[in-house]
C-alpha cells in the first residue's frame, strides 16, 4: 500500500517554476530519503506534500486519496507528521504545550501518546513545565521529535535532520529515526547528508534544480558514480 504519492507535480513560487514534474512515493513502513543540495527544491517538495504551497499541476495522494486541494490540517489528520528544519518549536510555550500542539487533531489519545514520548525521551518529563525556548539544542531536538510523534503518524517527514547540528546530535537524531522506523512508521527523510541517510534508508531519490534526476534503492544509489562524486565527496 502506498502511503504517499506525488504524481507529476509542478509547483511555482511567485513567477518562478520550482518543481518540475516531481513524482515520488513512500510505501507503508518504508524509510525513503530525498537527497538534494539546499535550494534544490527539497523544502518546496515538503511544503507541497503538506499543502503549504499548492501545485499548479499534478497530484499529491495520501493513502490513495487525492489531497491536492485539501488543507494542511486535513493532510495531517490523514496521518502525516513533520519534524521541521531548525526544529521550529514554539519557544514561548512550555514543553508540555509544545507536545500538545503535536496532537492538536487527536485530543483523545494524547495522554497515552504523551507517556510514549516521555518513555522515548525521559529527560523531557522533568522539563515539561519549562519554556521550550530555554532548553539546550539537544533537548529542543527531542521536543521537536516528540511533538511530531504525538499524533501517532503513519508517515513521519524529517526535514534536514542533520542541518546545522553538532555531530553528536546528528548521530542521536538518526538513531531515533531508525527506532521510529522499526516501530512500523514510514519515514521520509529530506537530507543533503547522503552518507548517513542512505545508510539507513530503503530507497532514495535525488532532486536537482527542481527535478528528480535519480531514483533507486539506497544500495544502488550508494554505488552510483555521479552521486558519490557530488555527495559522498573526496
Amino acid at each position, binding site marked *: 500500500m502506498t502511503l504517499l504519492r506525488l504524481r507529476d507535480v509542478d509547483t511555482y513560487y511567485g513567477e518562478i517554476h520550482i518543481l518540475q514534474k516531481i513524482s515520488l512515493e513512500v510505501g507503508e513502513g518504508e524509510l525513503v530519503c530525498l537527497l538534494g543540495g539546499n535550494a534544490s527544491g527539497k523544502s518546496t517538495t515538503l511544503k507541497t506534500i503538506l499543502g*503549504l504551497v499548492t501545485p499548479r499541476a499534478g497530484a499529491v495522494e495520501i493513502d490513495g486519496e487525492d489531497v491536492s486541494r485539501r*488543507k*494542511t*490540517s486535513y493532510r*495531517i489528520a490523514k496521518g502525516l507528521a513533520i519534524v521541521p528544519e531548525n526544529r*521550529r518549536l*514554539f519557544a514561548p510555550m512550555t514543553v508540555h*504545550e509544545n507536545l500538545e500542539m503535536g496532537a492538536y487533531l487527536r485530543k483523545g489519545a494524547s495522554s497515552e501518546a504523551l507517556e510514549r514520548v516521555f518513555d522515548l525521551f525521559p529527560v523531557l518529563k522533568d522539563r515539561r513545565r519549562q519554556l521550550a525556548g530555554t532548553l539546550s539544542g539537544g533537548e529542543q531536538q527531542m521536543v521537536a521529535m516528540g511533538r511530531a510523534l504525538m499524533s501517532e503518524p503513519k508517515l513521519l517527514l524529517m526535514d534536514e535532520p542533520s542541518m546545522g547540528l553538532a555531530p553528536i546530535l546528528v548521530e542521536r537524531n538518526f538513531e531515533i529515526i531508525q527506532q521510529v522506523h522499526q516501530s512500523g512508521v514510514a519515514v521520509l527523510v529530506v537530507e543533503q547528508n547522503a552518507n548517513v541517510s542512505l545508510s539507513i534508508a530503503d530507497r532514495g531519490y535525488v532532486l536537482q534544480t527542481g527535478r528528480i534526476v535519480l531514483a533507486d534503492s539506497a544500495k544502488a544509489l550508494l554505488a552510483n558514480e555521479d552521486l558519490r562524486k557530488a555527495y559522498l565527496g573526496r
Partner: protein
Amino acid sequence: MHLPLAFNAELFIQLLVNGITLGSLYALIALGYSMVYGILKLLNFAHGDVYMIGAFTGYGVLTLLGGPLSPSIAIAPLIVLMFLAAMVAAGLLGVVIERFAYRPLRESPRIAPLISALGVSFFLQNSALLLFGAQFRSYDSFVLGSKNPEFFEPGPLTDALFVVKNVNVQLIQVIVLSTTVALMVALTALIAKTAIGKAMRATSYDREAAAMMGIDTDRVIATTFFIGSVLAGAAGVMFGLLFSQVFHFMGFLAGLKGFTAAVVGGIGSIPGAMLGGLLVGLAESMAGGYLGGRWSDLTVFGILILVLLVRPSGLLGTRAIHKV
C-alpha cells in the same frame, strides 16, 4: 485661564472615574489591535472603524426598538440586545475584512496589507458617512428609560450607584468597567487554557510551524479577528452609552488611542492592554480636565513617544530576543 490653586478633590475624583471608564473602553479596542498584531504583525487600521460600526449597530437596535424615550422593551434586555447585536455585527465584519482584504496578502511585503487596511478604513468611514450623514447620531442614553420623557428626566443609567466625596459614580460607568473586566478575564482564560487559545499562541509565534502541527491557521486567524472585533463592537456600544452620541469619524481617533494603549501596555499582552488603556484614558481625562480639551490628544501622543523611547516593547511586553 485659571489655575487650580487648591487641590480640588472632587474634580480629581471625577476625572479619575471618567478616566477609568474611558480607559476600559480603550483597553477593549487595544486588545483587538494587540491580538491581530500579535498573530499577523499587521497594523489593522480598520479596527477603529469596526468599533464605529459596532456603535452604529447598537444605535440601530435602539432606534428599531422604539428609541431611547419610548423603548418597546425593558431597559436591561434592551442594553443586552444592543451589546449582542453590535458584538456579532462587528465580529462578522472583522472576519469578512480579514478574508477579503488581508488573507490574499499573507505572503506579500509588509506594506501591502497596511495599504489594504487603510483602504478598508477609508471605505468603512465613508460608507458610514454616506449612510448616516456627517451629523452626530444621538444615543440619548442620558434619558434612556426616563420616567417622564416629556421633561427629559435622566434615566436609570445615570443614577448614582455610590458616591465618593460628593462625586456620583453612575450605573453606566460601573457597567462599562465591570463588562470590560469580565471580558478580559474570559479572554485571558480562553488564551491560556483552551485548545484554540493555545493554537492562537502557537500561530502567532510561528504560523507555518503551527500549520505543520495540523492547526488550521486560517481558522485561527479568523477567530482572532472575530474575537478582537467583538470586543471593539462592545466598546462601540459603551461609547454610545457613555457619551450619548456616535458619528462616522469616531473610529479614527479612538483607533489611534487604542493602538497607543496596546503599544504602551506591550503588544500581545492582555493585562498590558488593560494597563495601557487605563493609562491613556486617565491621561486624556486628566489633561482634558486640568489643561483643557485641546491638549488631551497631544498628551496621549506624548505618552506614546515617551514609553516607546524608554521601553520600546511596552510596559508589560516581553522584550523579543532577536535571533541573528
